[in-house]
């Protein structure tokens, strides 16, 4: 085994060990669990209700899906990570971890992995429930769907790490998370459509909107405006939102890298 592969398998083992512990902690924290599982399921419950009334349009389904993905990124990923990373920092856990064999990136990856995993697992669950109970189509372009969710999850991970720098403790996260959540919500198609023209033109460049666009393309095979796009066509619609997500991700990662603090402020 070369040194490089040994190092890589070491990284996987270390991140997995931290992620396992973090999953246990998530299971024991009712508030975080509620954010990660119950809130994202509310739009789905709404769909089931509408379905029972017998009039589920593609438009209603798309709206519910985007709401669920928004809830996953904002609560299961962004808010939960903000809250747990701040808690680990204040408990001096991050400091202690840095005195071990893990690299900084491995410590953060291990902490973030369960939240990102939950987001992906919930989407997978929704695909199953959607096709079994709601008569939704199977994702028309799963690649775009997965890339969109993953890019969104990583972007909101970076935003969470940035927000920790202005968050004193996990209770304060309720307030410090507001700016990012508000700005992200402006990018929700449902909200953006009701805004003045000037603000609406901004929406596609906010962090949440392009994720919605990719997810809708990948799943429903339509743009957010309801124009249908086949498998090949969906890629031509995808590059612009894809670039926006990538831009947010790179920017977020760079800012987080320079400002992230590992220890409480004294």
């Amino acid at each position, binding site marked *: 085994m070369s040194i490089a592969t040994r*190092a890589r398998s*070491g990284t996987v*083992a*270390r991140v*997995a*060990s*931290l992620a*396992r*512990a973090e999953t*246990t*902690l998530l299971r*024991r*924290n009712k508030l975080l669990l509620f954010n990660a599982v119950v809130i994202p399921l509310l739009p789905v419950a709404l769909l089931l209700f509408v379905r029972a009334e017998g009039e589920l349009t593609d438009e209603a389904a798309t709206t519910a899906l985007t709401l669920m993905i928004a809830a996953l990124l904002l609560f299961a990923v962004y808010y939960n990570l903000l809250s747990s990373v701040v*808690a*680990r920092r204040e*408990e*001096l*856990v991050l*400091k*202690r*971890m*840095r*005195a*071990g*064999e*893990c*690299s900084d990136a*491995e410590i953060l990856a291990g902490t973030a992995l369960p939240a990102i995993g939950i987001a992906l697992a919930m989407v997978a669950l929704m695909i199953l429930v959607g096709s079994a109970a709601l008569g939704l189509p199977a994702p028309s372009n799963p690649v775009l769907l997965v890339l969109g969710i993953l890019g969104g999850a990583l972007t909101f991970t970076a935003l969470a790490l940035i927000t920790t720098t202005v968050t004193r403790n996990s209770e304060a996260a309720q307030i410090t998370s507001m700016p990012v959540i508000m700005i992200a919500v402006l990018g929700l198609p449902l909200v953006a459509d009701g805004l003045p023209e000037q603000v609406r033109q901004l929406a596609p460049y906010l962090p949440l909107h392009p994720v919605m666009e990719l997810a809708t393309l990948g799943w429903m095979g339509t743009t957010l405006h309801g124009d249908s796009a086949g498998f090949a066509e969906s890629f031509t619609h995808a590059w612009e939102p894809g670039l926006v997500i990538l831009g947010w991700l790179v920017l977020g990662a760079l800012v987080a890298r320079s400002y992230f603090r590992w220890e409480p402020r004294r």
Partner: protein
Amino acid sequence: MNAATAGTPAITVDALRRSYGGRRGFEAVRGIDFRVDHGEVLAVLGTNGAGKTSAMEVVEGVAAPTSGRVRVLGYDPWADRAAARPRMGIMLQSGGFPSDLTVVETARMWAGTLSEPRPVAEGLEMVNLQQRAGTPVKQLSGGERRRLDLALSLLGNPEVLLLDEPTTGLDPESRRNTWRLISRLRAAGTAIVLTMHYLHEAEELADRIAILHCGAIVRSGSVAEIVAEHPSRITFATPPVAIPELAGSTVHTSATTTTVHTADLQGTLTELLSWAAERGIRLESLRASTASLESAFLAVAGEEHAASAHDTTHERSLS
């Protein structure tokens, strides 16, 4: 220990400096040197704020030096963290664990990040925490948390062990256990650096001691060497007649007490007592004592105190 490391010190520190807050900021470590061999225990003593933790953090590789050179097993612990860490065990002065994990879950998490971990049960047993394996960290006492921290620092079978106040907050029995553990590790060839407040602990555990004061090592060596540098002391109630010159000693006389400092306690005492016997003088409240690590430490802390107060004023006027 392998052939490559035998004979070379496990830790070398040369001209280490560490400042906070830029060039004009506070200099916590002001140029220290030391080395620690395999199978040797160095105790770093100092008053609060002497710079013990600031220096330890650089040796641990959790902080970068401002200047100077640190090598642990031949590696720069800050720049070559990935290479050095698998062979180091570190216990921070203040480190924490997630409060909702149990003791054994915490140890498993840590073991999962190590290259060659010991069995978790063995690690917990070393610090007598096996009975508390299923207890959440938040229900542990302060001393139990310290022991858990120590267990984790030992889980990777380290060749170099850096313990920042390992016994603070421990009850007497746990403290004894920790001492025995440290002695055992030393016998197995581990290089160990400890910081501590308790002098008798350092005397018991350490091969060598470094006394840190205001960021500098002001005394170092074995306990005997440090003590030898400090004079013995004779005190008695000042008699109504003047004290004669005593060879090789200094005499301070106040209205009530006379203090004699001497390098040769037996010689000076003989001279003093012969003089008193000849004159028929009774020396009330007579006490004679050789220097102890404690008196040496207190003397150092006291003698540097004036200097540090002066330094502080000086720094303030600069900024």
